[in-house]
């Protein structure tokens, strides 16, 4: 009984830390801009835009990584369910804001509204794959299969978000560039990234030995991760059709709120999906390494 209450206190403290980090993130990215734009009140402690945005991003990412690190894939999926639910609510709110409240952009008009789903998807796809990369390194050092489960799940979620990113990008490219797809550095490196991680997921399906599967896919993940900084810097290194990264100072403040609402929405969905998918991976592994069930007396008789 004492142990149980200790465990639930510990879990509550972990939940409070993550909730606190998410609150700080949402405060500086959504609540303070709403108070400023609609109430004319500055509640951001006089911090400059860049500092607020960095603080919000750091707190959001830290909250998600913290929850993933302390999560036990053998436990119930309560936190994951809360995250997915919160993500859906924020996504509805952010999308409503992006579609109906935010004004159209001067040059791109209505089409710019795609940014509110495209950019959060890009950030979180790269974040999921980065977490998978971290899990691969930790697995190779520790040999704990918990990290293998998280690597598999974060790679899968990152690949799904990467595929979604390409679909959204193609839809945005058609009215602005005149083509659905172009072999431009950013698009090409993103396609390479998706196919590399699809290959790793396929490799995991083909290898039956759990130890070999975990080691080979960890090494492959570390190698494939080399493409992530190339994707990120491709727009700076080469002459690209794709625009360079924006900063809070180069994006008008009226576009900040829906963009950041959706950024947190996709962050919550991504974290919740990784937690749920890690449970699938952990359960599959437990079936693979479990001893076969004992035979009944009739079955023993049949065999004899």
């Amino acid at each position, binding site marked *: 009984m004492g142990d149980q209450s200790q465990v639930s206190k510990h879990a509550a403290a972990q939940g409070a830390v993550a909730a606190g980090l998410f609150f700080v993130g949402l405060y500086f990215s959504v609540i303070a801009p709403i108070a400023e734009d609609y109430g004319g009140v500055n509640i951001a402690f006089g911090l400059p835009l860049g500092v607020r945005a960095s603080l919000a991003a750091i707190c959001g990412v830290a909250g998600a990584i913290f929850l993933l690190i302390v999560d036990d894939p053998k436990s119930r999926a309560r936190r994951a369910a809360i995250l997915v639910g919160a993500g859906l609510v924020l996504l509805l709110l952010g*999308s409503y804001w992006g579609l109906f409240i935010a004004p159209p952009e001067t040059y791109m008009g209505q089409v710019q509204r795609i940014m509110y789903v495209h950019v959060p998807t890009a950030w979180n796809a790269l974040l999921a794959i980065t977490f998978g990369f971290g899990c691969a390194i930790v697995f190779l050092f520790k040999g704990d299969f918990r990290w293998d489960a998280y690597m598999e799940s974060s790679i899968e979620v990152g690949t799904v978000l990467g595929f979604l990113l390409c679909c959204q990008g193609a839809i945005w490219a058609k009215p602005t560039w005149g083509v659905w797809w172009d072999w431009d550095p950013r698009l090409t490196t993103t396609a390479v990234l998706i196919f590399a991680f699809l290959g790793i997921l396929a490799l995991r399906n083909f290898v039956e030995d759990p130890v070999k599967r975990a080691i080979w896919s960890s090494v492959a993940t570390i190698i494939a991760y080399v493409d992530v900084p190339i994707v990120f810097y491709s727009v700076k290194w080469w002459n690209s059709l794709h625009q360079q990264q924006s900063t809070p100072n180069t994006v008008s403040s009226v576009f900040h709120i829906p963009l950041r609402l959706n950024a947190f929405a996709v962050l919550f969905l991504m974290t919740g999906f990784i937690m749920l998918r890690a449970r699938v991976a952990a359960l599959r592994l437990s079936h693979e390494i479990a001893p076969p*069930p004992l035979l009944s007396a009739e079955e023993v008789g049949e065999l004899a």
Partner: protein
Amino acid sequence: MRGVVSGGWAYVWAAYTVTATILVVYGVSVITRLRDEWSRQAKGRQAQ
């Protein structure tokens, strides 16, 4: 011809629909796989 994109709502709706569809389909697939694994685990326990 002035470098301004006019119209475009169809593309916006397409992007949001694709986003919602892929996220919902993936979410449902993860939950279905998790439920399958839970029921497989429960059957394994019963067999033991």
